[in-house]
Each structure stands twice: as structure tokens, then as C-alpha cells.
């Protein structure tokens, strides 16, 4: 007999659903980071893996320990905590003590995400909140760079006890951006492109980052408009400034390939939660990031400005969305 042996389900349409889920999306982005992590390990050695592991542990600990409305630990399943932790690790300089990395991961989730109410509620990119915290708390440690060394050659500072810095063994080396800012010296484009330069773990190889960005864009894992707009903003403004004063302002090629720009563009600015959702909003947001990066780098006190540029535009996102809503079908554009 049909229909007599069981109770029917009564759901509301639609009864079909895309196979894509939020955890799959998070896993996809995390897996796309594998080449970036591999490049970091190649250039900076095993210390890169230790730092990323430490920051990820910190992030996962915060995700587990700090309360939200969801049952404890259940939010780990969406995969966003691990992704944030890995991203924090990739923004750190190689000789950083591990405890600082773990603290950065913890703060990223605690202040950057859970404080706002968990995934989807946060105003700022959590990974950048973590890094900004470390930058404010440990300015020296966060700007101490070393030349890439042997694979198993771990600096003494890495194992520093909590609340201690540890002594840096060996000499610190300036990043390409510091060399421009303070020494007016340019790094060869080839080194920037391949990544054989001092810098944060994930940011040095332009080649790897461009490939990862293309992959995520083609897979529609993020809104392609944001990275396009960021790079367009940087290229346009830095070209203009370079033409006006070539001695003071580096070429657009250098600006695009150096520092954290590509890493921030591909993996930070494209965070959907803290960036505008609408297409017009994405363009405004991306161009804003690009312009701010150039302004901070060329005129600010810091050599690098990607982190603050993205955080500032994160703060502007709710305002951007007020003016950048789509034009409803069959209606005039909203005032």
C-alpha cells in the first residue's frame, strides 16, 4: 500500500540544493593554501611549519574554549577556525617565537570572531585582527626579518619561553619594502616574483600567490571582482605617483609583487564575511584597499600597509553596502 506505512515529510520548496557547502568552501580555500605553505617551508625551512602549526592551534583552542550560542566545539566543523589560524601563521615573520604565533591565532578568533558573535558576524577579517594585535603588542618581533636559511636551521628565538623574546641569532635583514622606504634600494623583480626575499612566511613568492588566486577565482571560491579591484587600484595609483616622482615612488611592478599585497589580496581582502557582498560594493571595496595600500606605503610611516588597508576597508564595508545595493529587476536604481 502506498503511503500508509510511514509518515510523510513536509518541507517547503525548494527540494533541491546545491552540493556546495560552507565547510567544503573552507576546506577548498585551506587546501589552496598548501602550495603557499610549501613555498614558505621551501624558503624559510621547518620553522615556517612550526609557526603555522602554533597559530592554528591557538585559533582552534579559542574556537573551542570561547562560548557562542552554538554548542561547544560544534563550530569547528565549519572549518573556518583552522583557515583563520593558518592565515595568521602565514602573515608572521620567520624568527617569531612560537608562543606569539599561538597567541596571535587565539586573539584572531577571540577578538576577531567570537566577540562579534561567531562566524559571519565579524566586522573585521579575524586573521588580520590577530596579526594587528601582535603588531601592536610586539612591534620589534613582528618586524624582525631574516634571510632564508637552511631547512632545519631553527632560530633560537623560535623556542623562546612565553612572555620572552629570545635572542635573535644571526643578522636581521630588511624586507624589499623597508629597503625602498629607508634605503631607496630596489630588489630585483625576479627575486620578488619567485620569492627569494626576506618577508612574512606566506607573502614572498608572487608566482605561487598569483596561481592560487587564479585557481580560487576560476573555482568561484571568492568574488573575482575584489582581487581585480585591489590590483587595479594599486597599479593605477602607483603608476601615477611613479610618473610624478620616480625617485621617491617605486614602479607599479615593484608595488604589485612586493610585501603582503598579493597574499592579502588573494586570501584576506576576499574574505566574504568582512567584505561587501554586492558587485558594486566589491569594486568600491577593492579599489579602496588598493589606494590605501599605495598611500600607506608611499606616504605612511610604515613600509607596509596591506593589513591596515584591508582592516580600514573592512570597517567601511557596512557603509559601502548602504550605497551599493543591486538595482532591483524592473526598478530604477535606489537613491
Amino acid at each position: 500500500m502506498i503511503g500508509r506505512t510511514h509518515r510523510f515529510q513536509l518541507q517547503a520548496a525548494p527540494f533541491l540544493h546545491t552540493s556546495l557547502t560552507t565547510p567544503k568552501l573552507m576546506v577548498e580555500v585551506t587546501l589552496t593554501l598548501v602550495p603557499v605553505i610549501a613555498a614558505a617551508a621551501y624558503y624559510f625551512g621547518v620553522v615556517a611549519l612550526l609557526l603555522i602549526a602554533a597559530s592554528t592551534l591557538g585559533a582552534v583552542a579559542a574556537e573551542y574554549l570561547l562560548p557562542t550560542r552554538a554548542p561547544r566545539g560544534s563550530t569547528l566543523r565549519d572549518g573556518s577556525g583552522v583557515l583563520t589560524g593558518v592565515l595568521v601563521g602565514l602573515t608572521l615573520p620567520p624568527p617569531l617565537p612560537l608562543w606569539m604565533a599561538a597567541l596571535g591565532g587565539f586573539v584572531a578568533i577571540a577578538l576577531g570572531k567570537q566577540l562579534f558573535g561567531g562566524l559571519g558576524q565579524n566586522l573585521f577579517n579575524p586573521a588580520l585582527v590577530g596579526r594587528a594585535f601582535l603588531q601592536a603588542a610586539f612591534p620589534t618581533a613582528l618586524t624582525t626579518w631574516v634571510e632564508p636559511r637552511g631547512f632545519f636551521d631553527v632560530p633560537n628565538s623560535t623556542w623562546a619561553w612565553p612572555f620572552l623574546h629570545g635572542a635573535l641569532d644571526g643578522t636581521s635583514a630588511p624586507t624589499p619594502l623597508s629597503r625602498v622606504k629607508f634605503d631607496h634600494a630596489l630588489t630585483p623583480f625576479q627575486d620578488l616574483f619567485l620569492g627569494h626575499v626576506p618577508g612574512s612566511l606566506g607573502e614572498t613568492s608572487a608566482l605561487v600567490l598569483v596561481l592560487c588566486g587564479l585557481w580560487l577565482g576560476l573555482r568561484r571560491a571568492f568574488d573575482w571582482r575584489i582581487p581585480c579591484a585591489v590590483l587595479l587600484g594599486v597599479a593605477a595609483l602607483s603608476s601615477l605617483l611613479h610618473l610624478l616622482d620616480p625617485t621617491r615612488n617605486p614602479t607599479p611592478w615593484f608595488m604589485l609583487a612586493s610585501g603582503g599585497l598579493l597574499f592579502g589580496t588573494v586570501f584576506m581582502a576576499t574574505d566574504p564575511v568582512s567584505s561587501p557582498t554586492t558587485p558594486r560594493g566589491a569594486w568600491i571595496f577593492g579599489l579602496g584597499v588598493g589606494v590605501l595600500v599605495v598611500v600607506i606605503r608611499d606616504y605612511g610611516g610604515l613600509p607596509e600597509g596591506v593589513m591596515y588597508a584591508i582592516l580600514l576597508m573592512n570597517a567601511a564595508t557596512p557603509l559601502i553596502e548602504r550605497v551599493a545595493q543591486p538595482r532591483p529587476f524592473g526598478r530604477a536604481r535606489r537613491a
Partner: protein
Amino acid sequence: MKLPFRLRSFRHGVHPDDHKEQTEHLPVEHMPFSGRCVLPLGQGGKPSQPRVRVGQQVRRGETLADADGFVSTALHSPLDGRVVDLGRHRHPNGNVVPCVEIEADPFSPQLVAPHPPVDPDGLDVDAFVAHVQRGGIVGLGGAAFPAHVKYKTPAEKPVRHFVLNGCECEPYLTCDHRTMVERPAEVLRGARIVASKLGAGDIHIGVEHNKEDAIAALRAEVRPGEAIHVTPLQVKYPQGAEKMLLEALFGIEVPAGKLPLDVGAVVNNVGTMVALADWFDRGIPLIERVVTVSGPGVRRPANVLVPIGTPIRDLLAHCGGTVPETREFVMGGPMMGSALASIDVPVLKGTSAVLAFTASETARADEFSCLKCGRCLDACANFLNPQVLARQARAGDVKALEANFVMDCMECGACSFACPSNIPIVQLIRVAKSSIRDKKRKEGKKG
């Protein structure tokens, strides 16, 4: 053949798997007559007025109820038999509504007792509209809106295009596909009748290109020099929505709150044209329709010509019954249809499909937080911001919902389909819209 991405379409939308392979090649089959049929009086527009009494013998095709007012249509008996009840019965939507119940005459050959055929050329527009209304003809695409209402056009709104909707963008559905393949002459016959009465300059038929055989069949019936255009479209949901179809064909946007007529177009489903041609040429009113019976729970998926009023239980039994794992029955397409609380309800004039789903399709995946990823915006053919509407619907913020044009939502469900966090976006919007409508009605009563 043009490459798919060169074909016309509307902007935004989603691409669900179409699941049509189970039934798209199956010819429309007849089913045995059921012992009883239940016909709700309200099937498109205002409920009709019964003209029969309990105990009366009726012929197959005989008028059971007359239209009550303009936005209402006549109702005809799908069976030779006897009126056994004029009481209230369960409607597929769950309500209990006034119905006519017919018991089949077991000894009848069940031949149609036709009404006299009518030559549409001899009718003026008003007589044409009245005759369509007497035929009980409603839109067979699913909404079951009375067909004649669209043909009564005011003089200040001339009709340039008569548009036939052969998109069938809902997954699983193949009833329109088979109708176009098997009865293209009647599709065009109905279209020519309507177009001439509307004074439309041309006829456009939009068909998604996953139905190449339907496109070829229709084109073969077009006479040389005739202004009938069969246009292949991309496969995309919700292309069958009137306004999306007009955007796909002509690139025009029907203004919000306006009708296709306001941009000089009238849109009908292809199946409606066959019903219309049968009514004028053969005197057969709308007493049966093609229903796709499909889904993983159905043992023998099929396209069936079903007498209106046939119990869904009988229709499923004709299709081999359902597998024990069946958990949910859906009337209509899987994107906009509705779940059935009982299968002891009748097939209606607007029933395009009966689908059976098993636990693996109906299991509700976990909901995650909204990432604001924007996939719902890219899905929304109305260019709304569904994630914002869903949030405001949860908060019950009526003012903000209205400011964001929630009432423009056509509830196609593309947003919910596309959401990776599995947020029931359209469901939230639907609830919000109906509470706004209720509030408006109450305020109207007070004032």
C-alpha cells in the same frame, strides 16, 4: 547549432541538475480511469458555481460548474458517471474545500461527449474570451491562472508579441517537453488562434536547448513566411518565469508591479495552447492534462495523460507504486512545488508533476552561518539581496524588508538552492511576505 553560451537567457539564475533523463524520452501514456474523481470548484480564479445536483448522471466533458465572475472558469466532468457528492474534500494544499465528486460508470466506454466545435475566426474578441472561459482553460504551467483573463486586453495596451513558454526550467518536469514533441501542430494551432485574436504581430516560442527535439518539432510546423520564432534558450532556472522569459527573448525588463502586457506581450504555457486547440476544434474542454510522475521514489517514472480529479494514489499506483524509502511527495516541480501531506488528494488543472523523494534527497543538511558570500545575489533573477532579506525576515523587521523590496520576490527558490550554508532563505522570505500581507489586510479593514 549555436553553442550554449551564445544562446539567449536572462541575467542571474541557477543551474540545478535537470533530472529529466528518466522521462524525457517516454511518450505520453494514458492511464485507466479511476473509480472516483474529486474536482475542487476553485481551480484557477474564483471557485465556480456548480450546476449539477447529487445523484445526477453526467457525461465525460459535460459542464459541472459555471464560471462565477470574470476571473473564474468552468469545470467539466472528466468521467462518464454520477455526481455522488457536492461536499468538502481535501485539497492538495491541505485545506478542505468545496468539491464535486464523480463516481465513474463502470459500464461506460468513457468516450468524450464533445461540445460543438467553434470556428474562432467567426468570433469577436469578447465572444472568444467567453468561449475560452466556458472551456475551463487555465494556464497549465502550474499557476493555473484563468487563460481568458490574459486575452481581455484594454485598447490602450496593444499586444505586439504573443509568447509561448516552453522553457520547462523546473528539474524533473517533462510534460511540456513531451507535449511539444508529440503535439506541435496543436501548440501552433492554439498559438495562431490566440495571436490573431490579440492582434499580436508575431509569436515567439522560448524553449531551453536541452529539448532539441521539441525545437525541431515546432519548427517543422511553422509555415514559410510566418512570423513564428522558435528560440532556443540557455538551460537556466527560473527561465520559465514570465518576466525572465521576456528578458531572455527580448532583453526587456517588465517594470516591478507591472504585467507583461504593459510591455506589449502576453505569455502562455505551451500546454495551454493544446488545451485551447482541442476546445475550439474538437469541442473537448480541459478535462485531462499531462502529468510527469518522477523522482527517485517512483518505480516506473512516466508522462501520463491524467483525467483532472484523479486521486494521486491511483496515479502513483499506475506508475508502479513507490519504493519503501519514499519520504516525501511533491506536487509540481522540485523548486517551487509543494509537499503533500496526503496522497489521497486529486490531480488539479495546475498539476504539472507528482514527484516522490527518498530520505537521501530529503535529509536536511546542517545550517551554517551566513558568510555573505553573495551566491544568493548571483542567483536572484529579481536582483534583490536575499541574504539581507533573510536576516531581516528572521529579525521581523518589516520596515527594512519593504524598503528592500521583499514584495518583488517571486519565491522561485534559487537563493535557497544556491546557499552553501543551507539557510532557508526563500522560506524565511515567504513567511515574511505573508505576514506583511496579513498586516496590510488587517490595516485595510480597520481603515
